[in-house]
Structures are given as C-alpha cells and as structure tokens.
C-alpha cells in the first residue's frame, strides 16, 4: 500500500533526478476564478540533506540545498539569498522527503495514512503533528516500477488555502550525481549574503 511504497522509496532512493511540473492554485476569491501558476524545470536530490530545483519556466530560478544552507538565485532579480537549511526545511515537502534519512525520521513530525491506489500510483497522506506549520497536508503519489519505487506526485495543501501539485516525470532512481551538483556557485556580479 502507499505507506509500504513510501517506506521502500525512503530506503532505496539514495539519490534521484527528474523533470517536474508545478501547478500552484490560490484559493478562489468571491466572484473570481482561482489563480493558477504553472512552472517547470529539473529536480535532483542526494540523501541526506541535499536537493536542487532548477526552475526554467516561466522564469529562471535556482534553489540549491547543500546540506547546511538553502541558496536561492533569481536570475531576473539578479539576487542570491541564503538561509540556514533547517530554518526553511519545514515548508518544503520535497525537501523533507529527500532530506530525511528514513521514514522514521519523518514520523517524528508527520502522521502517515495510506490512501487507495489511483491513476496507477500508490498514495499516502502525511499530516504534520504540529498543526501551526505552513503545511496542512501532503499527499504523496508513488509509482512502483521494476527498478524500484519512484516519486511521482507531491500534492501539498497549505494552511492558507494554497495548493501546490508537483508532478515528476522521467524519474531516475539512484543516478550518480556529481558532487558539484549540490555546490552553489554564485554567478559573476551578484553579491551573495550569507545568513
């Protein structure tokens, strides 16, 4: 079931690489259609603690977690900001899934409940034990393949009514990723402020 698939994913996937599409839906205001924003790019992770989002559309943004610091480079704004990784980890489910060493580490902060299989995926819902965080619930969709369990969907409902659905495709399990992948290099001419 979903929980079994997630536990297997957490055991097997030491690293991963995939393309992603993210659809963020803000709650509809009275008399207005809900606002939807779509972005896409490449996602990589190396357990424990390292991940990278390379947003390409609609604008270029790079987010690198090197194990200590979460770096954000926004090309258009020509600015790099850095935050201690622990400070922002709670708000990024993708980070939680890839940073945590195993399922038990996650069980400290989340309650898990398997949901029925659907769309060829196994599903498990994670609900934060501390309610006042930004996340209300995370629905994780996993795909069992002959090579192992791949992460397919992260459907996050946050406490202010915002929903963000991350869909991964071309998921590669345990690729060998160059160490440089998770080392942030500031582009020339951008002043970098460490936290």
């Amino acid at each position, binding site marked *: 079931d979903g929980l079994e698939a997630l536990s297997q994913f957490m055991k097997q996937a030491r690293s991963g690489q995939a393309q992603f599409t993210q659809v963020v839906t803000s709650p509809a205001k009275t008399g207005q259609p809900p606002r939807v924003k779509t972005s896409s790019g490449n996602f990589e992770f190396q357990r424990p603690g390292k991940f990278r989002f390379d947003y390409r559309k609609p604008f270029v943004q790079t987010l690198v977690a090197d194990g200590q610091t979460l770096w954000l480079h926004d090309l258009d704004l020509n600015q790099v900001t850095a935050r201690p990784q622990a400070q922002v980890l709670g708000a990024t489910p993708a980070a939680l899934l890839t940073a945590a060493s195993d399922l038990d580490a996650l069980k400290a902060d989340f309650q898990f409940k398997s949901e029925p299989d659907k769309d060829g995926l196994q599903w498990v819902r994670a609900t934060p034990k501390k309610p*006042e965080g*930004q996340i209300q619930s995370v629905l994780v969709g996993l795909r069992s393949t002959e090579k192992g369990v791949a992460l397919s969907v992260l459907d996050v409902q946050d406490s202010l009514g915002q929903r963000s659905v991350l869909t991964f495709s071309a998921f590669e399990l345990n690729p060998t990723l160059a160490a440089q992948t998770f080392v942030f290099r500031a582009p020339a001419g951008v002043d970098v402020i460490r936290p």
Partner: protein
Amino acid sequence: CATRIMVPASASAYWSGRLALQINSEPIQQMSVSFELQGSPEQGELILFSPIGTTMAKLNWTPQMAWIEQNGHRNHGANLQAMTEQLTGTSLPISALFEWLAGREQAAPGWQVDLSTHPEGRLTAQRKKPQPETVLRIILDR
C-alpha cells in the same frame, strides 16, 4: 429599471510578481519573495509565497483594521504600513508603491523610483535617506 452595478470606488487593482528587497544595514539584509497584491492602500490583500510556492504570509487590511496570517497564527497590526515594516525590517512607501505598480510617478520622501522599464513589468526604487540605504526591485508576472 436597469440595475446599477456598483463599481467599488477604486476598482481593485491586482498585481502578481516577484520582489527583492536589500537593506544595506550591518549586516546586510535581503528578502526575495513572490507575491500577489490586490486592492488599494486603504483596503486589500497581499500574499507572499516562498520560492517553491508555499504561502509564507497573508496580509489583509481595511480602513478599520489590519491583520497578518502566518504559520497558523493571526496577528493584528495597526495598518499595512506597520505590518510591512515588521515583516521586512524597513518602512516601505505603501501608497507610493501602489502608484509605481500602476506605472505612475509618485514622490516618496527619501525614495527615488525608476519606472523606465515599467512597460516590461519591472521597477526599481532606492531609498538613500534615511539610512540604511534600501533597494527594492519588482518584476511583474506577464
């Protein structure tokens, strides 16, 4: 008889985009968020998002009151000006900002604004006085 449609006094404007703020204090402070802003200096809503699309804070204000929702808590503030000061660590020229976003020049003490690239959805404003020097850059979604 024809029903008159009541259009609110300031037909509520809406902007969404990204904002970068740099305060050249000691140490330098920086903030970069995506945002959705609706309404006017008197009444409206501002939502701030993290880079990965999670909501960081939601600010609402009316002539009578203002409040901010963050991490499951709702705190009341005096007004939008006070709340943005608490959030960013510096005072931002709120009413001028609404004019700048609409592409209209508006003076704000100590601030210089460059609206030359507003047609491409970009604006930069800089405050030299009072210290610390502050730079605000905004890119509007197209």
